């Protein structure tokens, strides 16, 4: 008999196991590309990091000029307010980042 790699030891863990009853392993997550909606048609981070060796190197210059483009519906949501779920009206409070950056009080 094949030993289960992880065993539920308490009621909470057994409740979690019951939730998963009937589920089977699936490769769906890998077989169907559910690409996050972003700027690019290929989820290829770095596209916007201009690869040139001279000025302006790297990301957008100044970074404030690309801030709204990175909120919610585009790249790098971790560095910007979540504009699609938790801070949908972020743009109303900060329509001009270079002027309004002091109002950025988001997780």
């Amino acid at each position, binding site marked *: 008999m094949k030993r289960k790699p992880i065993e539920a030891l308490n009621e909470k863990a057994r409740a979690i196991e019951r939730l998963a009853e009937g589920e089977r392993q699936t490769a769906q997550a890998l077989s169907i590309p559910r690409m996050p909606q972003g700027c690019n048609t290929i989820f290829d981070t770095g*596209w916007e990091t201009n690869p040139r060796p001279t000025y302006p190197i790297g990301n957008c210059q100044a970074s404030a*000029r690309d801030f709204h483009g990175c909120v919610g519906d585009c790249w790098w949501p971790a560095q910007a307010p979540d504009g*699609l779920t938790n801070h949908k009206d972020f743009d*109303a409070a900060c329509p*001009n980042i270079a002027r309004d950056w002091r109002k950025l009080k988001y997780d």
Partner: protein
Amino acid sequence: MRCTRFALLDACSRLRLLHAARSALLALVAGGLAFAASAQPRDYFYYLGYQMIQVVDGQTDSIVADVPLKGFVREVDLSADHRFLYVAASRHLIHKLDLDTHRIVSTIDLNRDGWEYFMYGFALDPDGRTAWGALISRSAKDGEPVIGAPVVAQFDLADGRILRRVEVPWGVGHLVRVKGGYLWAVGQDLFKIDTNSPEPRVVETHPMFEKGMNILPFWEYPWENGDQMVAAYYTPTAMGMLRIDQTSGEVREELFKGDPAMAYSVILSPDRKTGYAVMDDISVLDMDKRVVTNTVPLVEGTSYGVNISSDGRKLYVGAGGSTLTVYDAKSLRPLKVLHMATDGMDVRRITR
């Protein structure tokens, strides 16, 4: 003496008369010219901002109107009669902007029945009453999130009600309207949608992903670029231009020689022989030889959008940050920097 005086007076009168006649003629000519000038189509540039659109007069290069609205502006489309600009904001609102009064006259919301919609791609239908959007959606059932299939859907511009839809692969971010009732949906590949049948359907796929083509299909200027989509794409080694002709539906991939110019957006000169591409620089493109002929860093920094005056003499570069810089298209020297009220996403030209 009297006679001489009389003769002089007569001559003066005649001179006065001639002068008055000349003045009247000049006034008439000036008035005529002014009328002709006012009747000439005039460029207006629409700066698509946050909670606001600002209008710039292309003759004076000054801001002539502020249009407050709700949300962050993304796609726009122009009504066939050029009287209204439909403005998609916050991925679910569509505002109708009256171009005569520069006021929002109506707004619809796609969110309804417990579903939130996010529209990436917007195109008016030729019927003038409906529009198409590439939509992804989410809802909740019994406390669990429910994700809808990505669709291209037709909705009513009067109330936002979805009328018809067709499922498309994930990743569609832009729609291009083509004459004859077709749409090209721009995603990892291009999907041609026939909207003529009662149920819209995908009838053709133009591969891009397997060719390593990566594209950022947010910025393109169909009516300014002669009824075609023009957008830069990138392979691991080169830049190209993807073109979709809105009349024939033809798709063209034009690979450029040499080092790629990094570009968010591309505008063409009136004769379509020269392209101007912007991101951190303005790059001048020879569209026939498919080479980059000049590159100048942008003085105000990274910009998303570029547009051009209808005579091809001035470029309008901006959005991203809160500036719009007017450049001489020939010398690429900045002529004027306009400080806008908000950051922006794009700048569009409407000539009317």
